[in-house]
Each structure stands twice: as structure tokens, then as C-alpha cells.
């Protein structure tokens, strides 16, 4: 049952990703990216990451993609891309991609994942609550990166305003 769910959702995610890359119209690409993200959110749920899954949908599939669509429509570009001017670029890219994939599949063995098993077993997470545990970790062990993130976001806001504004 779980495997069937994984295979079907995984297939949707792959289809979504392929759609992003192949569809001519940027709006269609964006929509298929949303498909891909929602499918990933389901996978996250299966991985005991409830909080991340919800955030994925709200922030990513929601806010970020709205921003994307907004910009696409604001720029209102013609759907057609220009003629490919780099001979061999596409063939070479796909060949290299295949090579990379081969390498990743080769390396994707569980015994290549070193590290000691932690304490966050399914039972324990079910008991403590995923959101609570992640939140506690975020504000204890990871508090410094967490605070840095706020600085990053501030800088990003300033940067976005500076870049997008016509005249300062």
C-alpha cells in the first residue's frame, strides 16, 4: 500500500518536473511546478515531516508560486522562446544529466548513509508532536542559524526593493 502510494506520487512529481522543463508557456511551467511541489508535500508527509509538508504547501506552492505567476504575467512575454543558438548544448546537457543520474543511482545505497541512528523514532515523534519537536530543535540547537535567517530575509527584502524599484 505505502509503496503503491510512493510510486504514484513519485510519478506525479516527476511528471510535474518534466512539465516545468518542457512546457513552452511559462505559465504552464509554473502550474506544473505547483503540481510537483504538492506531490512532494505528500512525500514529506510519508516521511513523518508533517510540519515541513504544510510549510511546503503554504510557503512554496502558495506564496512563492503566486509571486512567480505574478512576475510572469507582469512581464507578459511572448510564449515562444528564441531559436537555440548553441549547437550541441541540448544533447550535451541531456547526456551529462544521464551521467549524473547514473552516478546518483549508484551512490543511493542505504549502506552509504553513515551516521548513528538518532532518538526521533516514529513513536517518539508521535508522542512529542512533530511541530513541537522541530520547533524546540529550531530554537535550541539551531538558534544561531535561525537568527541568521532573519538577517538573510531582511537583506533579501532590501535587495528586492532596491533592484525592482525604478528610481531610488
Amino acid at each position, binding site marked *: 500500500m505505502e509503496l503503491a502510494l510512493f510510486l504514484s506520487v513519485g510519478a506525479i512529481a516527476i511528471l510535474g518536473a518534466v512539465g516545468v522543463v518542457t512546457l513552452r508557456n511559462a505559465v504552464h511551467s509554473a502550474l506544473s511546478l505547483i503540481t510537483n511541489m504538492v506531490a512532494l508535500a505528500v512525500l514529506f508527509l510519508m516521511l513523518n515531516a508533517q510540519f515541513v509538508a504544510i510549510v511546503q504547501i503554504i510557503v512554496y506552492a502558495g506564496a512563492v508560486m503566486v509571486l512567480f505567476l505574478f512576475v510572469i504575467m507582469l512581464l507578459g512575454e511572448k510564449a515562444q522562446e528564441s531559436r537555440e543558438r*548553441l549547437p550541441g*548544448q541540448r544533447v550535451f*546537457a541531456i547526456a551529462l544529466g544521464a*551521467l*549524473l543520474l547514473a*552516478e546518483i543511482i549508484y551512490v543511493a545505497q542505504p549502506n552509504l548513509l553513515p551516521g548513528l541512528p538518532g532518538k526521533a523514532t516514529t513513536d517518539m515523534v508521535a508522542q512529542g508532536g512533530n511541530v513541537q519537536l522541530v520547533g524546540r530543535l529550531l530554537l535550541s540547537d539551531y538558534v544561531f542559524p535561525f537568527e541568521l535567517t532573519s538577517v538573510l530575509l531582511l537583506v533579501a527584502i532590501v535587495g528586492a526593493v532596491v533592484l525592482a524599484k525604478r528610481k531610488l
Partner: protein
Amino acid sequence: MLYQAWIIPILPLLGAATNAFLGARLGKRFVSLVACGTVGLAFWGSAWVFADLTRLPAGERLAMLPMYQWISAGDFQVNFALQVDPLSAVMLLVVSGVSFLIHVYSTGYMAEDRGYARYFTYLNLFVFSMLLLVTANNFLVLYVGWELVGLCSYLLIGFWYERKAAADAGKKAFIVNRVGDLGFALGVMLIFVTFGSLDYQDVFAGAPQMLAVGSVTATTITLLLFVGATGKSAQIPLYVWLPDAMEGPTPVSALIHAATMVTAGVYMVARTHALFELAPFSLSVVATIGAVTAFYAATIALVQADIKRMLAYSTISQLGYMFLAVGVGAYAAGIFHLTTHAFFKALLFLGAGSVMHALGGETNMLKMGGLRLKLPVTYWAFVVGALAISGFPGLSGFFSKDAILWQAFASPRGGIALWAMGLATGALTAFYALRAVFLTFHGESRLTWEAERHVHEPPSSMALPLGLLAALAALGGYLGLPHILGGSDALGSFLAPVFLDQANTALETQAPGNELGLMGLAVLAAFLGMGLAWYFYLARPEAPGALARRLGGLYALLANKYYVDEIYGGLVVQPLVALAHFLGEGFEIAVIDGVVNGVGRTVAASGAWLRRLQTGFVRNYALSIFLGAVIVLGYFLFR
């Protein structure tokens, strides 16, 4: 307060930072308040530390102040750490106290200068560097203070950088110091190689076990350290920068000569005495160089017409005394003389500054005279300073100089030759000090009519430090009143724990009559010098000229400072300039330019070929990155 002593060096640093960033905007009142206030607080803190130290039992007077781990690279561990012990405490008091008076004096002396805020920034930085130097707990912090002191002297000597002479003097001080600093740095490195640590405690405690007495390593380390000391403390052969340092504002000279900078070398030798004790040869080098420098510089001071230059050579000479003291193992006596010298030399320089202030910058004593009545405050202050440096009985210089002479004579490391040179120097010192008094303040006025009208007593901000320093110069000697005169040698016994491991037992065995007899001889020598000065410059003012003509060659030799600047110019500077010319005009064009042009041409040619790779399309570059990533990943997977 003992464990908060790190505040003491920080205060002037804060003052320097405040004045550097805000000084120009906030006006002179603010600048002087910050500058004097921070140094004053530092002095207050030093006094507090000193009082705290005296309350502790003698053996436990040591406070370590580790601040933070500074450098940690493999075996090389250095903490930024300070320490306070009796030696540091005495230095803290002398440095911050004399500096404070000089700061106050400067507010009057520099009142009209455009670079007021800049001046006090440097001055505060100078005090910070020196306080850091004396409170350092390891050789690297000491080295930082050491270098900062050199930097500040450069900045202050060249303070009036519009004047070429001042800028040159600043550079000269910096470069000559650099020669010494190289030796010092090598010494510090050798210490690390030998002991594996730079902490005072580790080095000094480990030295007796790790190094045999007289071993080559100990001698090399100490000689290298002493090279650094000769640079900072202006000893032969690196003293040449000090006379030129008078190009800076006069209070700066007072600061350099009295409280900071030149005392660093003496302090450092006293601080590292545990190493010097293991190298008898080095100690005898120190003592000999000290004695020779003392005598040599005093002879030059005899004939200088420029009052500041005269004082500069006198400083070199007095520093020679201090090195003579530490060289014969009389560390406490060296520090004692350092203290009293700080008082009376600051007094003399500030007095000279007052005279210059009154005369609109005139420094030639031959153009002064008769100022006694016009500048009574300055006159009396200067007289006290001159008598103190001459060793007039009862004044501070007498006691400290006598302590050195006595130990130079009686210590097993000393000897009659060293003592005799010290004694002769004492006579010369008395002569040139009194000569300055007579030329400047007595006799007929040789002022120009213009200068005559301009003469005025200094403002109270300058007069007050003069008065205080005069009191210190007169009474400072009672800090170390010797046992033989019924005193208790308070300073010596306070410092004793630091120098305990090498108590000069030999001195105890000497007959007390010897010490009194030598004291009498020293007083005789001083009076002889004073009497000659009186004879030549008051009683028979035409005599010096006649004598100078009679001994024309000797006089020219002395007046031209033994031609040392010229010799250094011929032996060191000229060949370097010639080499630079050769490198600049021959080597540079033929070899360097050739190589550079060749490289350029090669790059251009290969670039013309490689340019084809640069399509200008970002996606193309991304593809190359991807290729690289795949290859790197593949390498790690299949290697």
C-alpha cells in the same frame, strides 16, 4: 581592582578612539577633557592597583588577567593575557602619572595647534601602548605593545608632517626602531622554539631547567632581546633616532624620553631578567653598552647649543645608566632610576618647552640668557630638574644614581671600570645640566628685541604640571632611600619579590664604609661638574670659546656627534641607496620588466586562443560547471 586592572590600558584606548572619531567635531574643550580624563582615570586605577598590591603578602603580589584565547594554531597557543605584579605596578604608576601631567601640560602647549584632536588621539594611543607593554603577560602581547609604541612615536615625532625635518625624523625613528624590533622579534621566536610557549610564567619558570648557565641558546635569546632594547631605549648603536625625535612637539619629547618608549627596553630587560641571569655574557654586554653609552652621550651633550638636543643626549646617557644597572644585576636600582629619571627628565623637557613657548619656538641656548627674572616659575622648575639630574645630594637623581654606582662597584658582575665610567658620566652630567641653566636663565640676555617683548610665563595648565613634577623630582628619591642613610629602600623591597631569585648577596658582605665613601666621591664629581659649569658659563663667559678653539678637533668631533650620522649615512644609507638605484634602473628594466612583459605576452597569446571557449552565453558556462560537478562526483565515487 587588582583583577580589573585590564581597564587601565583600555581607558586611554577609548580616549584615543573617541578623539579620533569625534574629536574634530566636538571642540578642544571636549578633546582635552577626554584625553586628560582617561589618562587621569588610568593613573587613579594604577594607584588603586598599587594599593591593592601592597596589601597582599609580599610573596603573592601577582595577579593574572587572562582576557581571551588569541591565537590557537596547532601547538602555537597564545592568550591575550595581562598581569600585574610589583614591577608592572611601578611602571603603571610612572607611565600613567607622568603621562597625565604631560597631557595636562599639552592642553596649554598645543592650544593653538590645528591638529589638536589628532595630537591627543596619538598621545592617548601612546599611553595605551605603553600600558599594554608593561602589563603584558606573554611575549606576544609585549611585542604588540612594543610595536604600537614604535608606531606612536613615528606618528608623534612626525606630527608636524608639513615640515620635512619632522617627517624625516619620524621615518628615522621608525626605521631605526625597526632594526631593533627585528632582533626582538627573532628573540621572541627563538623563545617559542626553545620553550614551546610565550607565557612569562612558563618561560621564566622553565628557563633554569631547560637552559644551562651561559649556554649558547640563552645568550642568543638575550642578545636578540637586547638588540630590541637598544632600538627602543636608544643605546649604542641604535640611539641615532632619539636626538632627531625632538622634531615633534616638546611635550611629545617629554613623553618619549620620560614616561614611555625609551623606558620600554629597560623594563623588558628587567622583566626577562630570569633569562638574562642565565647568560652572563649578555649581561656584561648590557652593562658595557650601558656604561659606554652613558659616557659617550654625555660627552656629546656637553657642546650642544640646542636645548632639546642637549636634553635628548642626556636622556640617552641616563638610559645608559639604567642599562648599566640592569647589566650588573641591580634591576631594582635600574627601575628606581627609571622612575626618578621619568620625573626629572619630564620636568626638564616641559621646562624647555615653557622656554620655547615663551620665546616663540627658539631652541638655541646661545640666543637665550637672562630669562631668570622673566620666567621665575620655569626657572625654578628647571633648576630643580637640573640639580636632580646632576645628582645634587638630597634630590631624586642623587639617590637613584648612587644606587646604580654602588651596585656597579660592589656587584660581582660590576667592577671598577664600569663604576669609573659611571662616575665620570656623573660629572659630565652635572656640567651640561648646569651649563643649560646658566646659558638659558643667567647672564646677559642675548634675545632679539622682538623675542624679548614676547616673553611670558606659561599658562597655569603648563605651570601646574611643572610644579608637580618639580616636587616629584625633588622628593622622588625618598622612595628608595638606601639603608645606609637610615632609609628603608621602599621601592627596592617592593620590587624584591619580582627579582627575588637573584638577590645580590654579595652586597651584604661589603663594608658599609665603602658605600659611604663612594657616595662621597659621586657627590664630589657632581660638584666638580657644577663648579666647572659655573666657571665657564658664569664667571668667565669667554672661556668656553677659547677652550673650544684650543681643542678644535675634539670640539668639532663632539659638536658633530662623533659624525655617527655621517658614518651611518656612508656605511648603511649610501650603499642601500646605490643598490636601490641599481635595482630601480638596471635590474628593474632588464629583468623584472622583461619577465613581466613576457608573462603579459604569453597570457595575451594564450588568451587569443582560449577566447573561443568564451561564448558569452551563461548557459554555456553553466554547462561547464555541470561537467565539472559530474567529473568531481565521479572521481570520488570510482577512485
